[in-house]
């Protein structure tokens, strides 16, 4: 009787997860989540392959993959964590690829116009940034502030990832922040300055296929990401 009950439950549950088509699981750094979802929807439509997007900070996703999380593709916000997976032999013989290059925006919603470079350099007080110890956009923020010689002058409110940093500024709890330029473009925000790339190391957003059973489908998605129309789309959403 118990056995019957158990099998009924299992059959019942499996009805919910009938896979009529292949599915790939993609781990995406939180800054790229919205774009990745858009691209994944188009991809699913064209290739008949479902894409499940999981987003978190690059560091968190890295930990999960290292400990066997069932992702088929990893889209990191930097190159470092992809290289670390490579060194840990977690990616088979798959090669890393670059899918986007991030930009920083100095965002000050309360400003009356777009802040100029002089306004940015003259800014004092509290500034929201992503955590420079591990968040790629935080690392770049620290480099940019250091290169204009004001790293020591400000007090920092640190988000654990760039999306949280955005939220700190958006909720007006802090006057300004160094956030992802892509988020400003996608949310149609105003009153920001695009930080010159010469002030920090490029924010190279790399990805890698993880050599799972779905590697073939994951490769298709990788190629799709690097195709010209999709690269143009990514570019129009605030990436280089």
């Amino acid at each position, binding site marked *: 009787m118990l056995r019957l009950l158990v099998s009924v439950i299992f059959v019942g549950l499996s009805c919910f997860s009938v896979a009529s088509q292949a599915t790939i699981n993609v781990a995406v750094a939180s800054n790229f989540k919205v774009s990745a979802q858009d691209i994944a929807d188009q991809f699913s439509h064209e290739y008949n392959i479902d894409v499940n997007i999981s987003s978190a900070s690059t*560091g968190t996703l890295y930990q999960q993959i290292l400990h066997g999380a069932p992702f088929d593709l990893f889209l990191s916000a930097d190159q470092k964590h992809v290289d670390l997976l490579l060194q840990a032999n977690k990616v088979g013989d798959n090669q890393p690829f670059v899918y986007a290059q991030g930009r920083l925006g100095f965002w000050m919603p309360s400003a009356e116009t777009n802040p100029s470079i002089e306004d940015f350099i003259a800014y004092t007080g509290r500034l929201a940034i992503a955590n420079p110890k591990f968040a790629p956009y935080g690392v770049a923020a620290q480099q940019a502030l250091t290169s204009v010689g004001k790293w020591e002058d400000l007090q920092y*409110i640190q988000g654990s990832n760039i999306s949280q940093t955005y939220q700190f500024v958006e909720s007006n*709890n802090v006057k300004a922040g160094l956030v992802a330029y892509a988020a400003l473009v996608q949310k149609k925000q105003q009153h920001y300055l695009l930080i010159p790339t010469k002030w920090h190391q490029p924010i190279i957003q790399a990805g890698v296929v993880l050599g799972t059973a779905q590697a073939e489908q994951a490769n298709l998605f990788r190629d799709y990401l690097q195709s010209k129309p999709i690269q143009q789309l990514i570019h129009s959403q605030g990436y280089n």
Partner: protein
Amino acid sequence: MFSEGDLQAIWLTLKLASVTTILLMLFAPPLAWWLARSQAKIRPLVESLVALPLILPPTVLGFYLLIAFSPNHFLGRWWLSFNEHSLAFSFSGLVIASVVYSLPFVVQPLQSAFVHLDKRYLEVSATLGYGKYERLYKIIFPMLLPSFIIAGALGFAHTIGEFGVVLMIGGNIPGETQVLSIQLFDHVESLQYSEAHQLSFMLLAFSVSWLVLIYGFLQKRQQRILNA
């Protein structure tokens, strides 16, 4: 063994847990008493609100607090009228969040103690001519001292273990909002595993000993009652 940042985080966490516990021990007992005795129609609603942090994800609390703290809303505006900075990313903001978050852990043991308090003790003390406050100090408080200690200890421990809310409203400022759980998260995210191990083990050891202390205390008390 611990870095300066870790020590600062340990000290800050103890400070946060202490301030939170003191505040809770001041206003949780009257609230618990009211919940235990009142027949008012809104009691179930108040009781639910107190219990809410037990089931609500900390992210919900953190999200709403961040909105409430912003200058766009009443609480944030009021605070900014006599403070330079927003309640978000400040020690005071964390205290408010912790008080809400740990409230049920303090109120519920007290409430249950008050419910089970035999009415006859109060009646006898009334016939002895004790006033309201005398009854509180001479009868209720000494009889229920163990429940007060447990309520305080649970509130303290729960605040030490707070993470989600602080992550959302703290902003990770050393000495101000960078508590132990956040410092630990930082170590893990920045791949500093040996530092993470040290802090994790310390928190684990603390939590186990603290709980053994509380439950050991409970057991002794139970034996005393059974033997009496």
